[in-house]
Structures are given as C-alpha cells and as structure tokens.
C-alpha cells in the first residue's frame, strides 16, 4: 500500500470518527431538547417551586443550587489548584518529592466519584456532624476536580515561554514577581479554558451531590451551610423515586435545563478566556 493511499484511508477514518462523534452529540442534544425544551423554558418550571407529591412542580431552587454549587466549588478549587500548579511548575525542583506528588495526583484522578462521595459523607456528616449542605459538596467536589484542574493549570503555566521568565528576571524581578506579573497573566486564558472540563463535571456529578448536598429542597438555599438539591442529583431522585405523577416531564425538563446551563457556562468561560487574552496582549 503506497503512502498516498494510506493517507487517504487515514483521512477517511478520521473524518468518520469526527462525524460519528458529532452525530452522537447532535443526537443527545436533539433528543434532550425534543423531550424537555418546552418544559424547560416555562418560567413556572425553571423558576417555580418544586412539589413533593403533586404534579406541576418546578425546579427553581435546583437551578439555583446547581449554580451555587458550581460557584462555591470554583471559589475553593481555583486558588488551591492554581496555587499548587504554580508551585509545581515554577518553584518545585523536579525530584522525588514532586514525583511523589504527581503519583498521588494521578492516583486521585482515577478514583471514582462515588468514593469521593463516601469520603465527603464520612468526613462532613459523620465525623464533623454537619447536615448535608452546599459547602460539604463543594469541598468534596473540589477534591474530585483537583487532579484534572491542577494538571491543566500546570500545563497552561508551562506553555508560557521560558524567554518571558528570563526577560523578567534579567530586569531584576524575583521569581514570585515574575509569576505574578508575567507568567500568570500570560497563562490565564489557558487556565480559564482548563476550567471548562471541571465545570462540566461539577454540574453533571450526581454521586457527590446525593451523598453530601441533598436531593430535594423546597426553598432556595442561601447559606453555604444550607442543604440544597443541584439538578443532577434532583433528576436522579425524581426518576428513581417517581413519587410525583409528572416525574417524566420533570426529568426531561431538568435535563434540558442542565444542558442549557452547560452551554452557558461553556460560552461564558470562553468569553472570559478571550477577554484575558486580549487584556494580556494589551497589557494591564
């Protein structure tokens, strides 16, 4: 088989894989929207109060719970992950210790979320005697996301050319100033893009939510110590308990809202990343 033929076959295969991936994605989106979009866009649904027994309940508190959990997790996760990434990429000398840290992180990354969920439940509910709440979920979720997020942040930092660091240090800046003024702003768009995966994971994660945050609330949660019911957990709950007569409608509508939230967050993250790219090249 000559090279050109091989090339053509490879091209065809890659196209096929791409089209299949796109097809599956399109199928999921269309399927979910076809079943749930009409419900999802009704204010009485997306902003309405849930019903425990009767039909016609909304998911207002659940939408708020989802966003609240995402924000809270990010507030915890971002400084820790980026801080650790800065340490690993900029300050740590490669050696036994960093290899050990990486080994731990990689191991942590392969742990299934249900194990994190059980860990979170044991720590917060049994050991610290908290009730299920947003903060317990957010901390557990931050741990769950730490390996992936840290890796992507470290990668973004390592993408910053060495020559920038050299230029800064040769002007008399110390390591920390160089990180603060040059490396971090340059890596920021990449770091932000790297939050997309963790963000999606937080929104879709149900095990941690079920074990540590809660699956049903009547009122919008206010404090981080309030119980809440993010959509992923609520959908699971409604589907599996099936107490309310219109549980199918709620599951479909909830799934559609979850998908819309995912799109919005994805879009917002990209905009933020683009904003930082622009800001970076224009200084500031």
């Amino acid at each position, binding site marked *: 088989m000559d090279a050109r033929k091989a090339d053509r076959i490879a091209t065809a295969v890659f196209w096929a894989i791409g089209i299949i991936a796109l097809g599956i994605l399109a199928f999921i989106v269309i399927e979910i929207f076809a079943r749930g979009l009409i419900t999802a866009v009704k204010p009485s649904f997306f902003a309405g109060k849930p019903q425990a027994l009767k039909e016609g309940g909304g998911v207002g508190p659940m939408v708020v719970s989802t966003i609240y959990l995402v924000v809270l997790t990010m507030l915890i996760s971002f400084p820790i992950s980026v801080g650790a990434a800065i340490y690993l990429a900029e300050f740590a000398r490669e050696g036994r210790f960093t290899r050990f840290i990486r080994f731990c992180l990689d191991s942590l990354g392969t742990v299934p979320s249900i194990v994190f969920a059980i860990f979170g439940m044991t720590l917060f509910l049994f050991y610290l005697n908290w009730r299920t709440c947003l903060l317990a979920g957010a901390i557990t979720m931050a741990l769950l996301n730490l390996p992936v997020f840290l890796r992507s942040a470290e990668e973004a930092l390592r993408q910053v050319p060495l*020559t920038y660091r050299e*230029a*800064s240090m*040769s*002007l*008399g800046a110390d390591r920390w100033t160089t990180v603060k003024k040059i490396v971090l702003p340059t890596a920021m768009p990449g770091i932000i893009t790297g939050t997309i995966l963790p963000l999606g994971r937080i929104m879709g994660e149900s095990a941690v939510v079920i074990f540590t945050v809660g699956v049903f609330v009547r009122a919008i949660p206010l404090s981080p110590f309030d119980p809440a019911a993010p959509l992923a957990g609520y959908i699971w709950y409604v589907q599996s308990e099936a107490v309310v007569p219109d549980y199918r409608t709620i599951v479909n509508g909830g799934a559609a809202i979850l998908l819309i939230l995912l799109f919005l967050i994805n879009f917002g993250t990209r905009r933020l990343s683009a904003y930082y790219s622009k800001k970076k*090249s224009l*200084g500031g």
Partner: protein
Amino acid sequence: MHENGYKFELEEMDLYYGDFKVLEDVNLEIKKCCITSIIGPSGCGKSSALRCLNRMNDLVDGARIEGSVVLDGEDIYDRNYSVVGLRKRVGMVFQKPNPFPKTIYDNVAFGPRLYGIRDRETLDGIVEESLKSAALFEEVKDKLRTSALALSGGQQQRLCIARVLAVQPEVILLDEPCSALDPIATQRIEDLLSDLKTRYTIVIVTHNMQQAARLSDYTAFFMIEEQGDPGKIVEYGDTNTIFTKPTDERTERYITGRFG
C-alpha cells in the same frame, strides 16, 4: 573607589553545570564604555560566559562558579551581593526578541515599575526617553498602547533594548541580538549600539565576524579543544589586532574560515 577603566574583571573563572565543566580559566577585563564582542564556534560557552555577568546562570539547576567575577571592584558572586541590584545595573538582550505579551508602553515601563516608580508623568518620561534612545520612538509613538507582539522582529529587538535602557543600567549584555533579524534591521541595531557605547558598557556575543569587526573595540575568542572539554579563551585583545594579526593560529583559522 575602584578606577582602572575596567567595568568587569573575571579572574580564573570556571563554570560548571552540575558535573560538566562548561568554562575553564576565563580571564577577561571588560573596559568601560566600550563594546566587547565574544566570538567562537557553537557550543563553546559564549552564552554561558555572558550569563555569568548578570548571574542568569543562577537559574540553571546545578550551575556553580569558581574564581571571581568583579564588577566595579566588588565580587558579584559574594554572599552578600544583591542579585536584584546586579541585574538592575547589568541588563540583558536575548537572541530571540522576547517582548512581554503586553503593550509597548507596559514593556518599557515594566522595569521602572519593578523599582517602585508609579507616578504617571515620570513613567511617561522614562518610556519616551528609553524608546528614543533605542531609536524606536518615531516608529511607535502613536501606538504605545497597542500590543508589542504586533511589531516587526527588528522593532521588537529595539523594544527589548529600550526595556533594558529604562532601568538605567550601566552594562548591556547582548546574546546574538541580530541573529533573527534581516540585514537592514541588523544595521539599525549596530548603529544604535555604536551610539549607546558612549554611555554604556556593552558586551555582545555574535556569530557574525563582520559584525564583531565593525562594531567592537575588543574581542574575545572562545573555543573548545575536543567535544566534552570546557570552553576557554584562546585570545583576547583589541579587535583590530585580533582580526588583522592574531597571535594564535586557531584564531586566525576561525576568523578566516568565517570570512570564507
């Protein structure tokens, strides 16, 4: 006060990267307000030697120096010597232009801000002055607030020189500053360096023999004997002498080889 006309004095300096001896027995006196060029085949340690002068080698894991490097009478590798203070006095321009991904203004203002200058008018003045000294002001005066990455390679390199000038150094080290530039941009940098040498001590590493001959007052020729040996100075002296009647035949071979 130390007054013998020398800015830098290197005495029996050895440089190691871990177990690897990169430079051996370097003795070099660099005269004030002159251009000194460092030439030699690839890998002989020219960049490493230059980086000893502002302690950029400190960034290399396992880098270690023996002997002494004296700036204005003080050993810069002394325990109590301030590296930040040293780098303020000894600026560096790199082989590939490396402006920060910031505006032209912020690039030049980076150093002064580092040293605590916040006042708007003072900064404006420094930026303008530095860009003028680097012969770049006229070209960029209307776009100081645009990205430095949009400049041409030659402009970027002059911006890097302006960035160094903005901290008012005494010495400027340049590591093959023109190797990524076309002949016209190169010419502009050379003219600029000739202008600057009245006020600054300049040390330049170059692969371009004509450039060393045209530009510099003194020339140091570095070489390694065999693969794995440390680099050494073969000959050092007046540029004219080195290029017209070198005493060492290896210098002659290198120079004439390069002239073709």
